[in-house]
Each structure stands twice: as C-alpha cells, then as structure tokens.
C-alpha cells in the first residue's frame, strides 16, 4: 500500500499549474495586442510633397510678369530691378516644383523613418513627442527624440525654395525637423491631423515591435 498523498502538496501543485496556465494565457493575449498595434499601420508608407507650388508657382509668375509690365519704366531702374527679381524668384519656384508630388522623399516603416537628406534612418521607438504645423507655406513635422537617441546628420539643401529639408537638432532638445511643401501619400494630400495620426500610429507600432522582441527574447 503506498502512502497517502499529502492533500496540501496536491493543492499547491494544482494552483501552480493554474498560475502557469493563466500566465501563458495572459502572455498570449499581450502578444496578440502588440501584434494588433503593429498591424494597424501598413508595413511601409511613402510620402511625397504636395503639389501646392506646382499650382501656385505659375500663378505667382504670371502675377509677377504683370507687375513688371505695369511698372516698366526705364527712368526708374530701381522698380524694374525689383520687378525682375520677383519674376526670377517666381520662375525658380515654378521650375523647382515642376515635379512636385512625384518624388518620394520620406518613408515610414514599422521601425524606422527614412528621409532623403538624413544620412541614417531614425528609430521611431526613440520618438517621444510629435508636433505637426502648417501655416500655408511649408509643413513642419517636429519629432522630439529621447535624450539618449543617436541623431543622424543632415545634409543641407542649398538654393531650394520651399524644398524638402530635414534637420537633426541637438538643442534645445534632441529633435528631428522635417520641412516640406505639404505632404501627400499615394497621391492624396494629407492635412496636419492626418500626418500627426499616422506618425503617432507608426511610433506606437515601433514601440510595440520593440516590446514584442523583448518578450520573445525572454522566451
């Protein structure tokens, strides 16, 4: 006859099993939720600038030409010079934006942000705060980075009117600033709020991706 089993030991054994089961179930649920956060955004989104100066550049040019024609008077060379200067700027804006809305200058993936004029991708999981501002001329996206993030170097685009330009600034806080003439995705123009929502969703996805990797590394 074998000795009777200790009921308390039995109980603690079954409780431990229960605990393990509920732990595994919770883990699965957390992983499922993280995957939801990641899969909410497409694996990759490509952004171009909007066509605002492709439309307004020629109008501005015609206006400048009319102004020049009206004020043209060889006795007053100052006014003529100013008119010619405005015409030149309008022509340059028109010429520089002739391909607006076709060239992808910014790409977002579920981990990183790629911009043409930054020499390295930006880790979206290091982004702490996002602000988007557009007051009619250029859209400025400001990504405040965490203090230990490695900032890429930016290349300065020279002599571009309202061109696409990214800046990596260390002061006052580490931040990435991306300036462009509006923003469009798949040919559709995005307003400030949509850009903000998309950047925030990609940042959340990057955080979730990092969390998921940590959990999977734990086993």
């Amino acid at each position, binding site marked *: 006859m074998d000795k009777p089993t200790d009921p308390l030991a039995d109980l603690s054994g079954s409780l431990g099993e229960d605990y393990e089961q509920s732990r595994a179930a919770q883990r699965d*649920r957390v992983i499922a*939720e993280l995957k*939801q*956060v990641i899969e*909410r955004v497409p694996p990759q989104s490509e952004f171009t600038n909007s066509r605002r100066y492709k439309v307004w550049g020629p109008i501005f040019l015609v206006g400048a030409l009319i102004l020049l024609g009206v004020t043209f008077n060889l006795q007053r060379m100052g006014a003529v010079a100013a008119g010619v200067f405005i015409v030149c700027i309008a022509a340059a804006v028109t010429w520089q934006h002739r391909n607006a809305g076709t060239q992808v200058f910014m790409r977002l993936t579920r981990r990183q942000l790629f911009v043409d004029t930054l020499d390295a991708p930006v880790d979206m999981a290091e982004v702490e705060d996002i602000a988007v501002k557009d007051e009619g001329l250029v859209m400025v996206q400001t990504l405040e980075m965490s203090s230990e993030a490695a900032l890429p170097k930016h290349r300065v685009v020279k002599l571009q009117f309202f061109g696409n330009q990214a800046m990596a600034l260390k002061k006052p806080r580490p931040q990435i600033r991306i300036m462009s003439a509006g923003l469009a995705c798949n040919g559709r123009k*995005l307003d400030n*709020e*949509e850009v903000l*929502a*998309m950047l*925030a*969703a990609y940042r*959340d996805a990057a955080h*979730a991706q990092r969390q998921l990797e940590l959990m999977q590394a734990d086993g």
Partner: protein
Amino acid sequence: MDNAEREAHLAYLQAQADGPHDSFDLLERSYGKVLACAMTALLLCALGAWLAWLALLFGPQASGGVLWLLSGCGLGLVALGLAVLVCAAALYRRQGKRALSVTPDTLCFANAQAPTPLHAFDGFEVEQGYFSTRLIFTMAASSLAPELLPASFKGLASPDAITVAGGLRVRLWLCTPVVNGRRLDLQALVDLLYAYLQAAQARHTLAQLFPGVARVGVKAP
C-alpha cells in the same frame, strides 16, 4: 514586477475604476457665434448695397470703368454677406444640439448609430482655436472607429464628428460646450472627460485581469 508592486498597481486600478456614476449630455451653445455671423453678414450686405447705390447715383456723370468697379464690388460684398448669413442660419440650427452623450461606459457621437465603449479610445486631445474648441479622440489599436454618418454641411448645422486618417482618430468641433445648463471652460471639459475615460479604462483592465470577477459583477437577467 514583484508582489508589492503588483499590489500597488492593483490598488491604483481599483481606485481609478471607481469613477463617476451618472451620465451626461454635452450640448452645444452657438448663439454668440450666430449673432457675430449675422452682424457681419448685415454689415457686408449694407456696405455692398451702399456701393451699388453709389453706382446708380453717379450713373450719369461717371465713366464706365468706375461704374463697373463700384457695382462689381457692391454686388460681390452683398453675395459674400448672403453666404455669411447662410452660415449664421446653419449655426442657429446647431444651438442646443447634443454633441456627445457620455455614460460611465460608453460615448455616443451626434452622428453615430450606436454608442462606442469608452475603452475603445486610448486618449483624447482638446485644442482651443480662435473660433472653436476641437475634441480629438484617439482610437485604441484593438478597436475600430465608430460608424459615423457623413457630417452635414461641413458639420456647421450640427456638431457631427468625422473620422481622421482612416479611423485612427475621431474629431469634432464645438462652439461652447454646455453640460447641465452650465458652460464649461477648457480645463473643466478636459477634467470631466478624463475622469470618465480613466475609470472606464481601469474597469476594462481589471476585467481583463480577472474575467471571473467581471462576470460576477454582471446582474442576473
């Protein structure tokens, strides 16, 4: 996470879960803007009419160009005034409409077919513009944006919400939010909504942690 930390977290969740119990309707008050719009409209119309009358008055003496300019400007101003008057009429219809109805567990937009559970939102922002207060709700990843009817006349005639960026956020704008006959300032609005959202989130988290307890809490039919 050790046990003490766990217990502290649990106590925090329980404290948060005990939020406000009564539901409220967030109404819209727009008479101030109606008045401002109507005054602007009347002023524009009067100015336009005066310019057109000047054109008639100077008709015999003045040259053709001046006449065209005067009557063009006058009629343009009258048309602009009428457009602003239409806006004022739309805003007048907005007065007293329900923008949000909030219960301890759900939130219903004016143009939504069914209430949305509060835990479907993971946050909200309030933006104060020059002319309006904007409320922006961020959807949690696990839930879909509520089905909304299209906003009528750019949301001018009724405080309709619209979904932004393919359902990542929901936005609506308000002239003056009023609850229980009292107007709310920005901070009061934030505090009010935050208390409901926080409590609903805490209850949702507790229900996920202890599904059994949540079932016990449900009243028998």
